[in-house]
């Protein structure tokens, strides 16, 4: 489903060049739950952003279902992203002035499908947020915020969910809950890639990849 070939990313800063990702090659199949582990600064987020078609690699290719996503023009890439990829972030990235239902429906703005609202309500119910539909993010607990973000990620029925430290701001119980929801998505045929520097995600992962200073620790993956 996803093939990364010789992927490198170099950031140019005032202090000089920083190599965030160095020659990473990787294949991820449909239905996998991949945990990308490594300390802060190891290149996990950069890798996720590249897979998400948001950060053009300095070198190498990202192929999604045999299509080089960086050969697509900007708007087409945005469209591809909206249709195929869901995001879950450590900081939740909920729009503060929208309520839970509206935040979930934010994903529907780019992919027009019938019954999105009903689907959003159903998802939120499944995630235990049926009593919170009209609440704003500031009125939610961290776990509820992240579950809202998961609902938003799931709304467009993506093929892939990219989660960047999704449990970083959660207690152990909520972290387990969030990972379980991601696992449910994976078990229903979706693909999940979770970037984490913790260990919780490994229990749910079908495969773990370790990154150190932008390189794969075990290049055989």
């Amino acid at each position, binding site marked *: 489903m996803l093939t990364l070939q010789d992927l490198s990313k170099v950031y140019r800063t005032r202090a000089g060049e920083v190599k965030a990702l160095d020659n990473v090659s990787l294949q991820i199949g449909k239905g996998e739950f991949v945990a990308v582990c490594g300390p802060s600064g190891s290149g996990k*987020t*950069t890798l996720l*952003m590249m897979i*998400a078609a*948001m*950060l053009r690699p300095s070198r190498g290719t990202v192929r999604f279902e045999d299509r080089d996503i960086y050969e697509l023009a900007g*708007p087409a890439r*945005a*469209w591809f*992203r*909206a*249709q195929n990829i869901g*995001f879950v*972030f450590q*900081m939740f*990235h909920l*729009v*503060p*002035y*929208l309520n839970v239902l*509206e935040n979930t*429906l*934010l*994903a529907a*703005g*780019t*992919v027009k499908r019938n019954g999105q609202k009903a689907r959003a309500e159903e998802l939120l119910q499944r995630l235990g947020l049926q009593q919170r539909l009209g609440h704003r993010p500031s009125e939610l607990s961290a776990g509820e915020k992240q579950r809202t973000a998961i609902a938003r990620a799931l709304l467009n029925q993506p093929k892939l969910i990219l989660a*960047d430290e999704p449990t970083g701001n959660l207690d152990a119980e909520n972290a387990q809950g969030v990972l379980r929801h991601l696992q449910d998505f994976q078990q229903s045929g979706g693909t999940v890639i979770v970037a984490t520097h913790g260990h919780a995600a490994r229990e749910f992962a079908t495969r773990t990849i370790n990154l150190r200073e932008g390189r794969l620790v075990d290049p055989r993956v």
Partner: protein
Amino acid sequence: MFITRMIFKEVWHRKVNFLLAALAVTTAVAFLVAFFTASKASERETARLMLSMGYNVHVIAKDADIGGFLMIGIPDKTMPEAYLQKLAAQNSISYNHLLATLDGKMKWRGMDVVLTGLAPEVCPPGQQKQAMTFTVKPGTAYVGHRIAEVLTIQKDDVIDINGKKLKVERCLAESGGLDDMRIQCSLKDAQDILGLPGQITGIKAVDCLCFEKGDPVATLRKEIGTILPEAQVFQVKSLANARAKQRQMIRNIFAVLLPFVIIACGVWIGVLAVMNVRDRRPEIGLLRALGYNTAVVCLLFLGKALLVGLVGAAAGFLLGTELGLQFGPGVFEITAKTMLRPELSLFVRSCFLAPLFAMLASLVPTVIAVTYDPATTLREE
């Protein structure tokens, strides 16, 4: 929902930012509205004063004795009545009122009197203006105070002038000038009495005197000279100068203050918009990650600016009108408060220009917003 609803929800969420931005627009609009409301009132008062002071442009026959005209105000030569329509038909001359007259000195019942025939006033096409002078119906006359007193003439008397019978419509109040020795009748009656059919001695006008530079009389003479080569033009300069000076003063004050107000308010809105964009970096990053395009991000910020402009326009109009009504008379030395009134045309203009102004001031922050790299934004957060 989404864009409109998001704009309104964001405005409600960040009320202070919105109110401060709207306050900037309100300030700019209020300044402009107050200024224009007061200056319009000032212009109206000037026009009224000008009207009460009389006509300020006189067109007489080219061969009329200028010295005699300047001494007694009565031209000694006539010109065709058709000149009036010829002048009135010109778009190049701006005027408010045109009045053709036929003046003639004559001996009547032992008195030296001036007979003045008045044609109905002509206003520019499509403009109905209240006549500056009374309209004398054919067969009637307005008799000057001195004549009426000496000859004991009263309203409704019928007087006979060279065989023409005229009913006295009114005996005029004392003016202390030549009008006390004047009998005024319709132009046609005066032409019959004086035996000058189709002739007039002069055309009086109130013009707008919009000439900003150079000699307005020379310009007027040149303009009218091309249309009526057989005429000469005089202007009562003191009146013209008073009006021109007043307008110039208004323009000068406005020209100095306007750029400062506009720039200050524009920067104010721009800074608030930049702060808003910075506050919303994660939101912008998220929207881009979700596949929203540049146009949507633009709409979010320019739509908000539009709202800021509309609210500022409405509030600014109300505030500016109130300020104009309160302080206008002092600043512009307007004596008649009835001249001051809300200018609804300014409201319409404000509703169009203020949103445009707010959107222009928000343009750079909007460009900053759309150029945010979502990957960088989301990574930094």
